[in-house]
């Protein structure tokens, strides 16, 4: 019988590399007879060979035609002449150069040769097929379509990989040969990420965690490349927003070095405003002006009369003066309210550091002169010198400035001195120093100063004041004392207030004396007809001034009936008048008119806005003003009592 066989209508090649499965190539074939079946007439071609035991031998050959792997399978065709085998699971023959798992699928062409023996006992192999392996994974430049999962245990080289769904890489991912990686979607990295080269982000970047820049670079401070963080490319710099409202607990910036924290920029709290020297200065100034206005009001509401004889003589102050003085008080109070409103509303950030003063570079008068921190110096024509005798200003060399302005050109720093303008600064002081003492230049022109108690200082020493010894200073014979500088004008104002008080008292006393003399002259003129003519340099009209006849009559009666009464028994009477709530309210209207006259918009002025919108504020303001007035009035009253004058309170 002469029969040969041809192969096969179907071949499936699959790699099954799952861990629970061995590797292999699925091979399926239908065995068809290549000999026609003879029947009467036309013979039948292409008959299958069903249910027959056969031997199949697979050979995998390399491009040179050498056998790399060979195995045999004993199998039986099914009812449809089909066989299903796994290449790689057969009996390996001696012709195999490698085990199946050791085959190198390196992309070079490989061929599969199939031989079939129709007898399993009497082997006689005939060629069945010889074809190139051209399917996954033995394919080279072939498309792969897989509807299931694909697992690859070993290395895979892919020229162009496109994955349509989620891709899981359970190992590391290396993109070699400096190949670019382009992600059109978002990138999420859950672990620490290291970038060894330049990172360029062409769009807005949002970093939700802490960012630490550790740039191991050094260089000169004037070189931009010396700095780890460079912000450029915009007309604006850095915007910093912290959570919550501004507070000293929220730092916008923190400055540190190897020595620890050296400073910070934080939100300006109310406490910061209260301790701001400028705020203190301004408030003291406004308060002084208000106090002066209140004193003026007290003066305006006070009248003094000389009474001779028994009984009280009472005269009333001029109402228009009271109203005018009250308006001044209201205006000053409104200025304080307005200032405080804007100051707290405009509170921003504050820079805090161990430095304690605001300083500027000022040029030396003599380049050879050497200055040390704490030296008390004189400023003459804008130049720094240790000669303080004829200096325009007396200042101190800064030790640790917070802000240092007027930076000189590079290399010319030695021609300048850092001079403290405001804040705290150590100063070289000779002698005993007590808190609150004024520090003035010693006059030795050696950078030293001396302390003078506020009670002992003279006006001619005001211009020599450098600052005030800080409350935490202790008694020291010599050394550096922490002083507050830049507040000289405040101190001078305080001293001026004292002087103002003295002057007002003297003026009041002088006015009283003038009034008494005028009335005495008037009384004498009525009693003595030629009295006016004998008085030298006297205002004739003043003697004609009508006077209250009651006290005059009382004086006449006193002179007639009590001729033994002496001049020493005549009484000097000061009358104190209260101001009413209606007068203050009237003054409020006057203050409004005053502001309007200065071009100030009343509708937006914080004081008047508060007056009109905040319930009870007007009542509170009026009460406080009356309280302050009465307090000052009582002080003046007590003072007059001590002078022995007769004082009358008419409220």
């Amino acid at each position, binding site marked *: *019988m002469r029969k040969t066989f041809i192969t096969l209508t179907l071949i499936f090649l699959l790699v099954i590399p799952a861990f629970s499965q061995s590797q292999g190539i699925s091979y399926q074939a239908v065995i068809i007879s290549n000999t026609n*079946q*003879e*029947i*009467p*007439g*036309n013979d*039948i071609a292409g*008959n*299958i060979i*069903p*249910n027959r035991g056969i031997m199949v031998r697979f050979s995998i050959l390399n491009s040179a035609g050498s056998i790399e792997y060979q195995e045999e399978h004993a199998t039986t065709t099914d009812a449809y002449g089909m066989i299903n085998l796994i290449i790689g699971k057969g009996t390996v023959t001696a012709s195999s150069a490698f085990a199946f798992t050791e085959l190198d699928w390196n992309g070079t062409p490989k061929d599969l040769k199939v031989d079939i023996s129709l007898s399993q006992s009497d082997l006689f192999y005939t060629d069945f097929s010889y074809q190139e392996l051209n399917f996954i994974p033995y394919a080279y430049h072939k498309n792969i379509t897989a509807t299931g999962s694909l697992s690859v245990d070993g290395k895979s080289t892919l020229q162009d990989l496109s994955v349509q769904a989620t891709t899981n890489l359970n190992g590391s991912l290396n993109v070699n040969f400096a190949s670019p990686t382009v992600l059109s979607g978002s990138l999420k990295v859950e672990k620490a990420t290291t970038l060894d080269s330049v990172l360029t982000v062409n769009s807005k970047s949002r970093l939700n965690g802490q960012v630490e820049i550790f740039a191991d670079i050094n260089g000169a401070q004037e070189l931009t490349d010396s700095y780890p963080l460079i912000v450029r490319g915009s007309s604006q710099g850095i915007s910093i927003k912290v959570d919550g409202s501004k507070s000293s607990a929220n730092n916008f910036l923190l400055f540190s070095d190897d020595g620890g924290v050296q400073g910070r920029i934080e939100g300006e709290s109310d406490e910061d405003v209260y301790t701001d020297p400028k705020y203190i200065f301004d408030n003291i100034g406004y308060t002084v002006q208000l106090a002066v206005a209140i004193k003026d009001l007290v003066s305006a509401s006070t009248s003094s009369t000389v009474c001779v004889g028994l009984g009280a003589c009472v005269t009333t102050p001029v109402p228009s003066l009271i109203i005018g003085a009250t308006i001044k008080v209201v205006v000053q109070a409104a200025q304080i309210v307005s200032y405080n409103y804007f100051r707290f509303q405009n509170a921003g950030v504050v820079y805090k550091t161990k430095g304690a003063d605001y300083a500027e570079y000022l040029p030396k008068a003599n380049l050879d002169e050497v200055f040390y921190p704490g030296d008390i110096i004189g400023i003459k024509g804008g130049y720094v010198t240790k000669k303080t005798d004829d200096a325009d200003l007396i200042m101190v060399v800064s030790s640790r400035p917070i802000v240092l302005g007027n930076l000189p050109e590079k290399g010319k720093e030695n021609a300048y001195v850092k001079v403290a303008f405001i804040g705290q600064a150590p100063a070289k002081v000779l002698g005993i120093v007590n808190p609150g003492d004024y520090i003035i230049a010693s006059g030795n022109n050696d950078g030293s100063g001396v302390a003078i108690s506020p009670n002992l200082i003279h006006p001619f020493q005001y211009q020599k004041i450098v600052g005030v010894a800080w409350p935490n200073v202790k008694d020291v014979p010599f050394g550096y004392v922490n002083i507050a500088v830049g507040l000289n004008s405040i101190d001078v104002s305080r001293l001026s207030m004292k002087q103002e008080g003295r002057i007002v008292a003297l003026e009041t006393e002088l006015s009283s004396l003038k009034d008494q003399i005028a009335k005495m002259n008037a009384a004498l003129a009525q009693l003595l007809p030629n009295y006016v003519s004998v008085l030298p340099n006297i205002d004739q009209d003043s003697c004609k001034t009508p006077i209250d006849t009651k006290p005059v009559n009382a004086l006449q009666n006193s002179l007639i009936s009590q001729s033994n009464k002496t001049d020493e028994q005549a009484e000097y009477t000061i009358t104190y008048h209260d101001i009413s709530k209606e007068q203050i309210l009237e003054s409020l209207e006057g203050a409004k008119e005053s502001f309007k006259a200065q071009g100030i918009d009343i509708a937006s002025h914080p004081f008047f806005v508060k007056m009109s919108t905040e319930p009870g504020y007007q009542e509170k303001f009026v009460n406080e003003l009356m309280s302050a007035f009465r307090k000052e009035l009582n002080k003046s009253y007590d003072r007059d009592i001590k002078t022995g004058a007769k004082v009358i309170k008419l409220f």
Partner: protein
Amino acid sequence: MVLLGLSSVGQIINFETGKVLSRFDYKNSSGDKLEGLKSDVYSNLGAGARFPLFNTNFHALLNANYNRYGAKGSDPVLGNYYEWDVKYIGVCFGFDYEFNRPEVTRNEQHGFSYYIRAAISTEFLMDGMQNLNNQISNLKGVEEFDRPIYSARATLGFNYYINKTYILFGQYTGGRSFLIGDYANKEQLRFTTHSLSIGLAINLMYFQ
């Protein structure tokens, strides 16, 4: 015209029709038979002349035939189905001997007689069709059907003399073809036929 000429001297012409059951006896080149073939039944036609020999009950016969043969079968293992339908025309020459022939000299006379016949025939394919797995192909010129077939036939029949002119007859004929030539290591196809037919014979000597 030949038949009519013969009738003028030969006596009897006949016409017949019937059914023929054919069976294909096939061996492939390896000598293996094709199992599972079944016979088919088709019609046949025939016409010819009988010539008495020496005024005895022997007759010589010369007929022309049209026969249609067929068979079909299938292979349950391979799943193949096949069917053949072939039409042959040919001539048959033979001799018969009539038994118990009645004397019929007048039209009023009737009677039965019996006869046996031996004949040989040769047939040629007129048309043929093969159905293989529902694919139809023509058998003209295809091996086993591209040659004339030669057959030996044996007939057993009866005559009923309706009158002295007309004779009604019925017969059974068995036949088997045989091969002529070298068929060594070649496919061999033989036909075995069984036919039943009836016919009408006319004695031309009395035909007016």
